[in-house]
């Protein structure tokens, strides 16, 4: 939606907690397995007292800024990097006499996201006030959805590689507890030298979707993979640009807050493992004094069955209508790529992970006779590594899909060898505007097409390597490779090794 990238597209809050594994005297409500997992799949040692070991669980709360033109409850513009306090209305500044008016686009974004995450959409949801004091929250409260949020009970499937090998991917699922609409706060710039805070309210009131995940993840790697997938989904839907995620480890060990002895055990446990202990919560418990937002009646959503006949279209958000228009989610896109082009699942992940790479790949495939299975190798190994080395995005690539397709065609027609092709690509990368054919001609990389010339060279090599020839004729086929190598050297790499092998074999069998 908005062309400019959001600086705070995605903010996350880690919730670390420790739970007893099942089987201890006080089994955890969620029934965690007794053997804790960690990233490497090793078992976590038992606690001293012989009870089931403590199992780390990670839950995330992600705040994604909604892609919209105006704010959640006011008509101020949503834009990154504007002059301070220029995108602020009287309501955003919390001046008396102003009232919130809900933005329809934000509701649709939340419904889209809820549907994409397999949530139940609450046809009636409510708004509440969450009170706390801070300079960038002029009203002293934030309008959120604490009692009945817009979407609940969803799931997010993500994949991650075990042991850093791309070849072994497992699929995991994390439950989504709820998605709620809420306001963003302004921005504070702390000036410690002058003992003051400068407040910019441009961001105050911007719509956020808070996605709350259950603590189903065991470690940082899982959490990172889940967030990456969520990011891709949000970008695909267009409900959020989800540009940047920043994590905060916030929630403390809730289970342990009351028991003194349990705390001691945990400390011992920690020193054994050498784990980082989560940050202490803010001084004391916060009391948000939640209360219903009296200026906003309940938000009612409709579907095809409950659609009222007499209501103005503009006032109606139809869940089914939105559902029908959901774009293909990343998981579906990946499956389609694998099916259509015969590439591996891991390849599809890499294609979707890089912005614009899928499009590039598909364009090359369209313009070349080379099979997609071979093309993908060039895209992921050669092109992508160049891009990464030079920190370029696909859009900034000096080699266009057209040029690469051209090059691959030469290779496919056997006009050059694959070694030569790599040389040409290196040259193309300089971005000097030459075509692959021009480079091939310049550097004399064409494969020798003249059969007679090749035969002559083969003969010359055979004549010069009596011992090797005898070894081959005696049955040692491996020596043939040495002869092929010699021919390659003679031709400066311009001979097709398959053809050379054939010619040599023919000559040697004569």
């Amino acid at each position, binding site marked *: 939606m908005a062309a400019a990238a959001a600086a705070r597209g995605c903010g996350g809050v880690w919730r670390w907690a420790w739970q007893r594994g099942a089987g201890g005297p006080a089994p955890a409500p969620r029934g965690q397995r007794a053997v804790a997992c960690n990233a490497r799949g090793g078992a976590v040692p038992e606690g001293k007292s012989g009870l089931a070991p403590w199992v780390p669980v990670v839950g995330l709360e992600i705040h994604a800024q909604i892609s919209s033109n105006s704010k959640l409850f006011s008509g101020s513009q949503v834009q990154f990097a504007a002059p301070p306090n220029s995108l*602020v209305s009287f309501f955003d500044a919390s001046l008396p006499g102003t009232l919130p008016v809900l933005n329809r686009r934000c509701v649709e974004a939340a419904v889209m996201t809820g549907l994409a995450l397999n949530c139940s959409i609450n046809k009636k949801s409510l708004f509440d006030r969450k009170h706390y004091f*801070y300079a960038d929250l002029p009203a002293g409260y934030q309008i959120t959805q604490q009692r009945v949020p817009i979407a609940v009970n969803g799931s997010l499937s993500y994949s991650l590689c075990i042991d850093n090998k791309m070849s072994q991917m497992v699929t995991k699922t994390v439950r989504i507890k709820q998605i709620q609409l809420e306001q963003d706060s302004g921005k504070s710039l702390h000036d410690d030298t002058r003992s003051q805070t400068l*407040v910019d309210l441009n961001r105050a009131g911007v719509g956020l979707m808070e996605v709350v995940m259950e603590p189903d993840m065991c470690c940082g790697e899982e959490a990172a993979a889940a967030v990456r997938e969520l990011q891709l989904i949000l970008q695909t839907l267009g409900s959020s640009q989800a540009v940047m995620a920043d994590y905060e480890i916030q929630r403390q060990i809730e289970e342990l807050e009351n028991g003194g002895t349990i705390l001691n055990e945990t400390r011992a446990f920690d020193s054994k493992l050498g784990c980082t202990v989560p940050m202490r919560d803010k001084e004391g418990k916060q009391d948000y004094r939640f209360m219903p937002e009296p200026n906003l009646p309940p938000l*009612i959503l409709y579907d095809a069955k409950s659609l009222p006949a007499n209501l103005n279209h503009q006032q109606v958000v139809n869940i089914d209508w939105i559902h029908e228009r959901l774009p293909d989610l990343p998981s579906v896109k990946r499956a389609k790529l694998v099916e259509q082009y015969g590439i591996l699942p891991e390849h599809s992940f890499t294609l979707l992970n890089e912005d614009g790479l899928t499009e590039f790949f598909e364009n090359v495939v369209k313009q070349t006779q080379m099979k997609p299975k071979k093309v993908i190798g060039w895209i992921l190994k050669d092109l992508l590594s160049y891009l990464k080395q030079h920190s370029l995005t696909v859009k900034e690539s000096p080699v266009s899909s057209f040029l690469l397709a051209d090059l691959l065609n030469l290779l496919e027609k056997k006009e050059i060898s694959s070694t030569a092709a790599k040389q040409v690509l290196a040259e193309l990368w300089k971005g000097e505007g030459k075509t692959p054919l021009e480079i091939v001609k310049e550097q004399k990389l064409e494969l020798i097409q003249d059969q007679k010339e090749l035969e002559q060279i083969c003969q010359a090599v055979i004549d010069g390597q009596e011992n090797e020839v005898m070894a081959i004729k005696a049955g040692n086929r491996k020596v043939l490779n040495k002869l092929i190598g010699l021919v390659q050297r003679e031709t400066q790499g311009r001979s097709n090794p398959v053809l050379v092998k054939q010619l040599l074999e023919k000559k040697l069998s004569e």
Partner: protein
Amino acid sequence: MRALCLGRWLRTAPGAARGAGEGRLPLPLPVPPARAVPTAPVVSPAWVPPRPAWQHGQQRPAPQQKVTVEVLDHLEHLALVDFRDAEGVERLQKAVQFADQLHEVNTDGVEPMDSVLEDRCLYLREDDVTEGNCTNELLKNAREKVEEYFVAPPGNIPLPKLEERETFLQGF
């Protein structure tokens, strides 16, 4: 001004006398002295009684919860108020008592009302930019500003723990 008849909703306290006098609204409510309405439109001032017009005279036998020092410390942390002395705490106590009178009303089977707008449809606005760009107006009333930023005191400095600060609450 029509008097409100709360009689129906008042819980019957054990052994309470339900008659005029203690614990009932004096009917009708005191009305401000009549004023001759002048010809020119004038906004009549709001009339706020100088003392509470109604007092719950009945001493409830139910235990009144004293405000504990933990609660007071918590409030001081949250709202940065300073209860300062016994009178401050007593005033809070009275305020809590006054608010507790709401418990007199029998709300069994009655859904809480969130908003007087509960029967209305929530209006949905189109996603158009219609406001903003009024930096000067917003900053006009700010006592302090720095280059179009509002100036606020440094970020939330949490109150030190009860043991670590000098306060009346220590000896509470």
